């Protein structure tokens, strides 16, 4: 089939789906593209929702990946407020929530992930919020301000970013974390301790080892979070940020291989050669770690959008990447490259007390990941070292008088 008459249907208009549509056009794909999104607005950047947008430093227009007219101008049929409900692979037909059917030559599943809900008493009260979409962020922002108190269930990155933004808007913030430290699943103890200290200095309160057993309310609206130890933490609203689950049901129902998400290869192709899966929903190979896993990050969404668009247009696959992500809290810029898989040593470069340091996770003398706080050189060189799989001199790496360029030389 020539690409000029193929129809690409993209289900999911988040960062991954929106980018895939734009890249197909950049790469010269001339056939029709249909982009189906559950939200009322075209694709936008989610990361600022917990940061710049929440603090009022970015408006909706600036978050949009492309202006609305971009889609019509580029013959991309953007269909908002819809999701796919059924996939018939033998006929290459996908059915949407309004009953319409689309026949595809290539299908890209970019259905993302959804916030995990807490299965506890009172979980249906008003004022219980999550933060994934622009609408979620609007609802959260409406609850923040001087004299208001936000309870945040989950001490992960979303929770901490929301806490920082809440404080800057004058609201009280209390973070309830089940584990005995923050960021327990995603960062090492040094970083957990550092972030806790910085947030406490900004007036955020923490309850660690706190198991949430329910929510209390009055007139249908949340007034407090009940903990397993019997205490109730009063609040005006509660943000739940305890992780996300992939929206892979449609793929499972259609018999596509799924693990912790939809299984894909290095081209982002699923077990059906006409179907790709990209972004938060994909369970993908990562050769530098010799394993497969699912990632929730913008760089991952972009990378896989490139893979799928390249495969569909017959371009060579993009070079293997080193995964990375970032977080902004107060005046702290955290940049993370890689994942600490199989690491057997943690090496600290710099002094956390200065607010500028990096933590390297090593496997023998190979860098597996780096967490860099206000330290771009450590992030940038660390990322290159991870990708190159080149041994590093640990004594030099630990010595801040040796520049990162010399360390990597």
């Amino acid at each position, binding site marked *: 089939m020539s690409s000029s008459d193929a129809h690409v249907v993209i289900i999911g208009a988040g960062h991954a789906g929106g980018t895939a549509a734009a890249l197909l056009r950049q790469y010269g794909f001339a056939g029709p593209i249909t982009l189906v999104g559950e939200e009322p607005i075209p694709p936008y950047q989610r*990361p600022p929702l917990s940061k710049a947008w929440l603090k009022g430093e970015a408006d909706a227009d600036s978050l949009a990946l492309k202006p609305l007219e971009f889609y019509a101008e580029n013959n991309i049929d953007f269909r908002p407020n819809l999701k796919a409900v059924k996939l018939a692979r033998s006929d290459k037909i996908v059915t949407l929530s309004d009953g319409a059917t689309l026949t595809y030559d290539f299908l890209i599943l970019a259905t993302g992930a959804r916030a995990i809900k807490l299965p506890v008493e009172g979980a249906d009260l008003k004022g219980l919020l999550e933060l994934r979409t622009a609408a979620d962020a609007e609802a959260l922002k409406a609850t923040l301000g001087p004299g208001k108190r936000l309870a945040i269930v989950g001490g992960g990155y979303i929770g901490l970013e929301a806490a920082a933004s809440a404080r800057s808007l004058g609201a009280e913030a209390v973070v309830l974390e089940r584990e005995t430290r923050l960021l327990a699943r995603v960062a090492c103890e040094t970083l957990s301790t550092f972030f806790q200290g910085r947030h406490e200095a900004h007036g955020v309160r923490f309850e660690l080892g706190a198991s949430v057993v329910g929510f209390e309310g009055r007139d249908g609206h949340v007034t407090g979070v009940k903990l397993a130890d019997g205490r109730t933490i009063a609040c005006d609203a509660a943000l739940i940020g305890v992780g996300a689950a992939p929206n892979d049901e449609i793929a499972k129902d259609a018999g596509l291989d799924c693990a912790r998400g939809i299984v894909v290869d290095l081209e982002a192709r699923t077990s059906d050669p006409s179907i790709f899966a990209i972004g938060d929903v994909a369970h993908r190979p990562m050769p530098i770690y010799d394993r497969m896993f699912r990632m929730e990050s913008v760089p991952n969404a972009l990378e896989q959008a490139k893979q799928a668009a390249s495969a569909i247009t017959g371009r060579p696959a993009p070079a293997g990447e080193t995964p990375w992500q*970032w977080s902004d809290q107060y005046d702290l*810029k955290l940049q993370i490259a890689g994942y600490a898989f199989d690491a057997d040593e943690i090496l600290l470069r710099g002094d956390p007390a200065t607010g500028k340091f990096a933590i390297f996770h090593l496997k023998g003398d190979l860098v597996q990941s780096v967490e860099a706080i206000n330290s771009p050189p450590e992030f940038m060189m660390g990322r290159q070292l991870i990708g190159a799989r080149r041994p590093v001199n640990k004594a030099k790496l630990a010595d801040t008088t040796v520049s990162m360029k010399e360390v990597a030389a």
Partner: protein
Amino acid sequence: MAKITYIEHDGTEHVLDVKAGLTVMEGAVKNNVPGIDADCGGACACATCHVYVDAAWQDKTGEKSAMEESMLDFAENVEPNSRLSCQIKVSDALDGLVVRLPESQH
């Protein structure tokens, strides 16, 4: 509003009207100009919106922050006139700006 010319590495020119208040990066990305990736969306976290600012415009585009300087220091193919385009705010004073794009952002 400012007229900005983006020149791809292969010489392809894109002349765009970019609204004041946006960044030079946003002007390119929102118009689907290839060659500016801007993975982080303007957070100065990734150095994938690298451009070369034409000599005549270097003063008008302002000073680099320490963070930008530091990120650029580790990007590929950096020249004295390299900038991260997410850190250049568009204003009427930049009407006529010309930026060239590197071969690759990665």
